[in-house]
């Protein structure tokens, strides 16, 4: 009985952290603070929910699987957050947003760039 209450408490906590993370995503002004809010709160929320689920199911192998899931989620989200932050700061100014093609590559230089990789690719 105690385990069920503990599991329920963990899951509620996890849900709370998820909603806080989402709130952070909506409210924070710039990219870095949003990333900060998202990765920290959501990962903690995920960990709590997985812990609650493992407690609820009460099976060690499932708990191990949940832990593995959590580690992969942590690796994935932290790496991507880091990459987004790095790209955002280095290139916020000089690189116009990718979707705005700015001036389309004129066919002339398109040809030039086309020539460049070919010979090297053949060798």
């Amino acid at each position: 009985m105690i385990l069920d209450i503990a599991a329920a408490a963990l899951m509620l906590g996890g849900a709370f952290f998820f909603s806080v993370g989402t709130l952070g995503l909506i409210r924070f002004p710039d990219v870095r603070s949003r990333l900060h809010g998202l990765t920290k709160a959501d990962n903690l929320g995920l960990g709590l929910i997985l812990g609650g689920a493992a407690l609820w199911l009460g099976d060690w192998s499932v708990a191990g699987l949940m832990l593995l899931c959590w580690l992969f989620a942590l690796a994935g989200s932290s790496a991507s957050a880091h990459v987004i932050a790095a790209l955002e700061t280095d290139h916020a100014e000089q690189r116009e947003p990718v979707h705005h093609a700015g001036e389309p590559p004129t066919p002339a230089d398109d040809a030039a760039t086309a020539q460049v990789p070919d010979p090297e690719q053949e060798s």
Partner: protein
Amino acid sequence: MVSVDTISWYLLVSTVMIIFGTVRLLLVRDLLARLIALDVTGIGVLLALVALAARSESSDPVLQALVITGLVIAVAFTGLGAVLIRRIEGLREDGGGGDRS
């Protein structure tokens, strides 16, 4: 064993998705919106098939195999549609640059 009213609920959801996707596909003009509407219709039809599979006690393997086949076909036509949209919009960005074949 999934209860009968759950199955009819998901059949209703799949019907709404199919019709919503079809109507949206026929009415909207933006290319990516049409591609996503096509995909939503595909997911709706597959949802109906899986709901039918859930009727037999351990959900029916043949219908599940059909849905997996349907999923891979959905990726195929979405990939082809995406590349075609990319080429058309590349053309529009250039204002139809390059000699038109």
